[in-house]
């Protein structure tokens, strides 16, 4: 295993039903500080792979090493803690808790994890939330209910929540699928800049894993990986067809 890999999967096999593997990956690495674009068609196991990397699921076989920890050796609670304190997650849509304000949504990881709280650059969580909100131009909506925001604004709140407290790994699961082309590019630029800011402010390397079925986004990233190429289970499924 490379000592600088943020994510390292070795001989991983995962199946929901016995005899029907969804993922079968011999070797997959994401270098620390890298910006990886992972693409694959719908149903190819992208979200399952992200669930393995974030420690929600555990493979039946193999090792999933994330930020120096072998998740297969950790308890469920330890995996949850690692995810909350070291990983920022952006969903495709419905990223926000509807009954919390914008500020509360952004602050949530810091409220739940002292490690995230310890890494903020401002003296208080509220000031850190305000700083990020200004950077992402949502500072005028901080006390608004999230339901009053446009889809684009909601995705920016999701970026803020994912990067607050400088997690070492940010995972974005099809975050642009509900945006039009102009907004999609603006979102990607903003995400990239926000992560670069975090890196530049001396808070360590931030690794970005961006997952999408849309290959046209590949130009925004350092490295592009096709899930179909690394997932033997997908190849086998296609062969059966």
């Amino acid at each position, binding site marked *: 295993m490379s000592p600088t890999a943020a994510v390292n999967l070795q001989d991983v096999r995962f199946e929901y039903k016995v005899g029907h593997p969804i993922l079968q990956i011999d070797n997959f690495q994401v270098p620390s500080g890298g910006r990886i674009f992972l693409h694959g068609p719908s149903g190819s196991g992208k979200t399952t792979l992200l669930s393995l990397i*974030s420690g929600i699921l555990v493979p039946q076989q193999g090792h999933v090493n994330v930020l120096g920890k072998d998740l297969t050796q950790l308890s469920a609670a330890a995996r949850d803690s690692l995810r909350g304190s070291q990983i920022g997650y952006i969903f495709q849509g419905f990223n926000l808790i509807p009954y919390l304000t914008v500020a509360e949504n952004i602050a949530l990881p810091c409220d739940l994890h002292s490690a995230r709280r310890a890494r903020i650059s401002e003296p208080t969580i509220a000031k850190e939330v305000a700083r990020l909100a200004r950077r992402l131009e949502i500072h005028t909506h901080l006390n608004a209910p999230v339901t009053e925001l446009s889809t684009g604004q909601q995705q920016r709140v999701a970026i803020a929540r994912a990067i607050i407290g400088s997690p070492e790994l940010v995972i974005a699961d099809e975050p642009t699928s509900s945006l039009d082309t102009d907004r999609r590019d603006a979102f990607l630029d903003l995400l990239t800049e926000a992560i670069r800011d975090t890196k530049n402010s001396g808070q360590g390397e931030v690794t970005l894993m961006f997952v999408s079925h849309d290959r046209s986004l590949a130009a925004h990233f350092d490295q592009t990986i096709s899930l179909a190429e690394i997932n033997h289970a997908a190849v086998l499924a296609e062969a059966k067809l």
Partner: protein
Amino acid sequence: MKTLFRLAFKSLRSRALTTTLTIFSIALSMMLLVGVDRLRDAAKAGFSGTLSHTDLIVGARGGGLPLLLSSIFHIGNASNNISWESYQHFAHHPAVAWTIPITMGDSFHGYRVIATDDNFYAHYHYRGNKSLVLAQGHASQELFDITLGADVASRLNLGLGAKIVLAHGIEEKSILKHNTTPFTVVGILAPTATPVDRAVYITLLGEEAMHYGWENGTPPAIGEEPPPLDPSKLKVDVITCFLLGAKSRMSTLYLQREINTYKAEPLTSIIPAYTLQELWSLLDYADTALSLVSGAVLVVGLLAMLIALYTALNELRREIAILRAVGLHARQIFTLFLMESTLIATVGTVVGIGAVYLLLFLLRGVIESHFGLPIELVGLSTRVEIYAVATIVCGALLGTIPAMRAYRNSLVDGLNAQ
């Protein structure tokens, strides 16, 4: 934990209507349970407080409870009369301090007419040491004097000097009026919040005067004029019952035995407090039935909470996925839902108990004056505390069902709930 509590609170607040209705249903159930409990205590206090300092009630041979109910609470009729001689015998008994003779059998607009003497005003006590006070005028002295209980005076809007005609029998709509012997209101008693307020008081001879010329309780035939009243010929032959105060409490049991075995006439004497116990054991059935109904309503309230939380689960799957993504453990998801159900049950319980006390505080005057039930605003009784704790515990236990489902969802859905 603080963040979880905040999340649970805000999640419930976001479903304000469902949450409010669920809380309302639990609060209503608690109101019924606690209300029944408080009113039972109030009823006991009301009945027990109606009569104090009276050691024995003596009437014709019959059941103890009917004697108590008819003589003190004006419910039902006495089985028979007792002779004036028997009354005199015990009134002058060396162990007896005082007696209050009572004759009943007539009414005024449905209110009992009680023929008695000065002893009633001097010795009748209620709620411990409280004795009767005349708000206006004086006690009945003359043949056709009548003193009104406070309720009678206020409801019928009668004042001193009013002339009233009493009716024969205790039915509200009596066909036989004592038209020839009208009474004059000479006194009005101050309110006591006991059945005393709902009766009118005449002298024993006044009672005899109304029935002058009657033969064996039967009025003169139609067309037949009653003989002209000759007060000098009036005498009391029988009374309905009498209250008795012994010189010492020690002699009460001895007196009771002597009265119950009195050879000259079959009599029954009862110790009011003991006979009230019989009443409570009868009321316990009604109390149990009411409590069961209230308990059933509480179960329905808690089930409504379960349904509300359970049906909300599907809507909450994406939120659970987000919370899992920000590092909430599956057991914290369980705790979150448990907090919601416990919060609903707790708020429902507190609101229910608070509402009962508020209502009792606001309505105690009305309840006391209309029903004679003094409402004691004491703290929570042990029974109420048990109800409250049981409701919250049941709410929490029922909450484990949706909480367990949310826990499983969070494990199965992971970050993938749609």
